[in-house]
């Protein structure tokens, strides 16, 4: 993918010019949110009760939230309609519409962390440099919806890496002490001096990792990301990404560009995960990044030396 911009002197990238590492403020915030989501998923294991469930469907402070695609799959597969599921999907839909479509991918979804890691590894170890078309994910989305209806099974939820990762986080670490309150050694602590511990009350509280076979599937995706196609899953295949891209198209929250400040240095292209969306704004065709695939990860805002880019609100978002 060549850089479609005129290289005039001003923007000449000096080969040996070391990047003055600009402090990436937004990346820190995003990392904070991502780890926050992971702690949220793991919180029931440590006894917190305000959150339960996974990213497919969860309950926070009593509110039901369901992934809209999962809801759609459910309605198509089970050929029913449930107000509760629709309502919970609607809240998620409205939230992401105003926060910015694919914000789910870069800020919430734990699989994105793997993608970012695979992106770095891909630079060094990429073996095949295949580049499918960015619209592939929409075909996958379509296929998922049709298949769900046809096989009357929520096809995507069966194989969703988002499901697998969040399931394993939710129940993979088991520290719940047994309900019956069995104890390993008796009230008087050491019962036998230096003898072996009392072997009668054995099945008691201890940390157990129950990660199940699903992580193989996630590993496969990760390897494809690294060796075969850069960002194969998040950029080109994930139907949830496609779903939020469609939603994000019309969302008011967009990246704004200040054409004067932009000196066409191209740094934003390097860090952007879906850098084709930047072409139009950088070339001055639009003041906002209009393409829905932008995940509002704000990497570009961080790296822009002239801070030409910033998170903006597109007031007339309905046009």
């Amino acid at each position, binding site marked *: 993918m060549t850089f479609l911009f005129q290289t005039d002197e001003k923007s000449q990238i000096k080969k040996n010019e070391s990047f003055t590492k600009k402090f990436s403020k937004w990346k820190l915030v995003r990392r904070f949110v991502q780890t926050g989501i992971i702690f949220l998923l793991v919180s029931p294991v440590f006894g917190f009760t305000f959150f339960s469930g996974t990213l497919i469907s969860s309950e926070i402070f009593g509110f039901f939230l369901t992934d809209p695609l999962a809801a759609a799959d459910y309605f198509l597969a089970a050929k029913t309609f449930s107000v509760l599921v629709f309502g919970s999907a609607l809240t998620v839909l409205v939230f992401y519409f105003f926060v910015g479509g694919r914000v789910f991918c870069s800020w919430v979804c734990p699989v994105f962390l793997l993608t970012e890691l695979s992106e770095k590894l891909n630079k060094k170890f990429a073996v095949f440099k295949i580049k499918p078309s960015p619209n592939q994910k929409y075909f996958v989305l379509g296929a998922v919806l049709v298949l769900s209806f046809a096989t009357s099974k929520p096809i995507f939820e069966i194989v969703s890496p988002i499901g697998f990762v969040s399931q394993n986080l939710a129940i993979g670490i088991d520290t719940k002490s047994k*309900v*019956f*309150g*069995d*104890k390993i050694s*008796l009230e*008087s602590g*050491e*019962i*036998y*001096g*230096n*003898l*072996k511990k*009392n*072997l*009668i*009350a054995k*099945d008691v509280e201890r940390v157990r990792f129950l990660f199940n076979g699903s992580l193989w599937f996630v590993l496969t995706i990760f390897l494809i990301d690294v060796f075969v196609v850069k960002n194969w899953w998040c950029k080109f295949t994930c139907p949830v990404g496609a779903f939020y891209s469609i939603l994000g198209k019309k969302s008011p929250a967009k990246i704004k560009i200040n054409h004067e400040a932009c000196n066409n240095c191209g740094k934003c292209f390097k860090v952007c995960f879906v850098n084709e969306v930047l072409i139009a704004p950088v070339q001055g065709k639009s003041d906002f990044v209009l393409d829905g695939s932008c995940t509002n990860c704000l990497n570009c805002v961080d790296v822009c030396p002239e801070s030409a880019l910033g998170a903006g609100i597109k007031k007339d978002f309905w046009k």
Partner: protein
Amino acid sequence: MENFSRRNFLKSTAASVAISSMIGCEQKKTAEPLKQAAGGSSDQLGLEWDKAVCRFCGTGCGVLVGRKDSKIVATKGDPDCYSNKGLNCIKGYFLSKILYGEDRLTKPLIRKNGKLEEATWEEALDLIASKYVEILKNDGSNAVAMFGSGQWTIFEGYAATKFMRSLGFVSKDGVGSNNIEPNARMCMASAVAAFMRTFQSDEPMGSYEDIEHADTFVLWGANMAEMHPVLFSRIVDTKIKDKIHVKLVDLGTQFTRTSEEADLYLQFKPQTDLAIANYFANYIVQNNLYDKDFIETNTVFKRGQTNIGYGLKDGGADIPKDAEAMFPMTFDEYKAFVSTYTLEYVSELSGVPKEKLEEAARLIADPKRKVVSFWTMGFNQHTRGTWVNQLVYNIHLLTGKISKPGNGPFSLTGQPSACGTAREVGTFSHRLPADMVVANEEHRKKTAEIWKIPVEKINPKPGLHTVEMFRAIDNGKIKLLWVQVTNPFQSMPNLNRYRKAAQEKDVFIVVSDVYPTRSTEVADVVLPSAMWTEKEGAYGNAERRTQHWNKIVEPPGEAKTEIWQMFEVAKRMKLDDGKTLADLIYNYNPETYYKEIWEEYRSFSLGIGKDLAPYDVLKEKHGVVWPYVHKTKEINTKVDFTEVWENVENPEGKKGDDFISVKWRYNAKYDPYAAKFLKDHPEHKGEIAFYKAKGNDYKAVVLAVPYEAAAEEPNNEFPFWLCTGRVLEHWHTGTMTMRVPELRRAVPRAVVNLNPEDAKTLGIKGGDLVKISSKRGSVVFPADVNGRSIPAKGSVFIPFFDETRMVNEITIDAYCPISKEPDYKKCAVKIEKV
């Protein structure tokens, strides 16, 4: 009238022809019982099979133990054993696994600055012996105590009682210590006291075979479906063979698996069994269904002392001196006494509907019916345990239904050798072997003669019974306690007091056991012991059957038998004249000391109606019932039975044998002693003779005692009754059965059984954690609402096998003033959801 008699003739012929055609035409497949060659035979798997008896309950099922190389790998029921004929319960099924728990004790342990460290046998035994000598010299015999068990083998029990009672040679006050108690005090003491007061001889007079002859079974608070599974299987077999006629009456305070099988279930309020038994006696007397001439020849009426206290204060201060007194009484006075227990009064007091009470009374009193009463802990662990035992004897004595096949009261035992070891060997604080007591001059003389020690060495004053013994530890009077084959620091009632005493008071505790338990936790010295078939042994079960087994495998590591431990300690106790205590009391030939101990112990029982079988007969047979009587005097009796021998039957042998195993004592048809007695006393009519009751002119006592309230009744602060007990899957404190993975998987923890209505009002669901507290403490248990036993409204049941939650921390240590047996079945608690 002639027509009348012809009609009867016609009717009876019609009836008999019909009956014979009914039975005759369906021949039973009498499969010949499996003839199993036992005793050292090996089968195709290369296993060496040898006979033994099950390690657990009082039923005493015979088992065959299979050894391969040096490990017990299999067991099976012994088809030649009369009680179980080749069957076991689930605990017996796993017998081969109890020896091989992971944390089996294999080295002696000595507590050094708070921690139990491994030590050598020399070090441990020297320490114990020195402590014994030091305490005996400074504080005298009453400062040492031993707490043994109904799971001791007979040899160990005999060696222990001999050891303690001969400590006079070492102690400063020159007499032995009577502070020796078996845990059978918490299990069978009430039965022993009742037997001695009624018949002046311990041990039941009937046999398990009564089950096949009887048609009415009255279970007094005995959950036999779980506690004596194989016997219950025989009762149910009798029931299904004749569904119309055979009746099973279950009196209890909670609905159990036994009540599920019962035809008539009487659920009564705790302690009101006293009133119910008196009502039955009243019913018998009012409807003059009593056996007049049996009463005249064989019974004497007495009135028991009343308001005899509950033993709540140390030293039994709240018990009147003459609590055990019995005053003469005439039959009419007795009739007047029981007449107050009318149907209305008892029904209202006990909460049992009138028609059920009456139906039960009718069944019991019906002369045509053969009635067997069964009871165990429900009656024995009772603040009026001795009374309530005697009230059932009253019923059987009034109706004459005693000592006959199918008729008789049968006091079941809990432990495998409570009878064989604790009661017959007399390891109680007031007893000597074979029904003898320390307070009696002649008994001491006879014992001294057999033990070959001076009679003044035997302490005439009875020692401390169990509850007082542990209270004496708390009061610092007892400085040394040796615990063997039992786990008192989990099974004592009011446990917190005694655990604290053991840990804080200056008392040197030695525990001989096979696994780490709550008792080894407080011990100063832990001695690893050999277990069950890792040593030669013999148990005596509930029907007076002594069963012997050989040593089959070696004990693990350095574990040794309890007898060896006592020998070694005695060897280390030097006397003034240079000899050791062992030389005096244990000078047996090391190769054959089991045989010598047996023959010495057996000499106590000969000629007094308690004759035990010789050692070789025991080794060869699959269990021998005593009295085991020889026809002529010279072999083992001081009495000659040749003239009466012909008309005495020998159910377990052939007609012409010169040995008879007496199955029904006191019955001349089966007991040579009774036949001889009747021959010598022609004026004594009938075929029953209580020849042991010399004190009451050979008559059994019918005792008039009233209903008295329980020691601690529910009140508004503690509104619930608490009853404790066992489950089929586990044995006592679970130290063995909880180490069998399969049994622990089936019943992994103790739960509190709640009545569904109580659970609903308290908002408790199955599995919720519930705190149960009494005046003495509180324990948390998971709740079980629709489980195997459903307590009556306002009462709860908790088993005591779980060492991580000990229900005995809240039970009360009130005891029956006569038998000194604590009441685990009744105390007041409150229930809160955690």
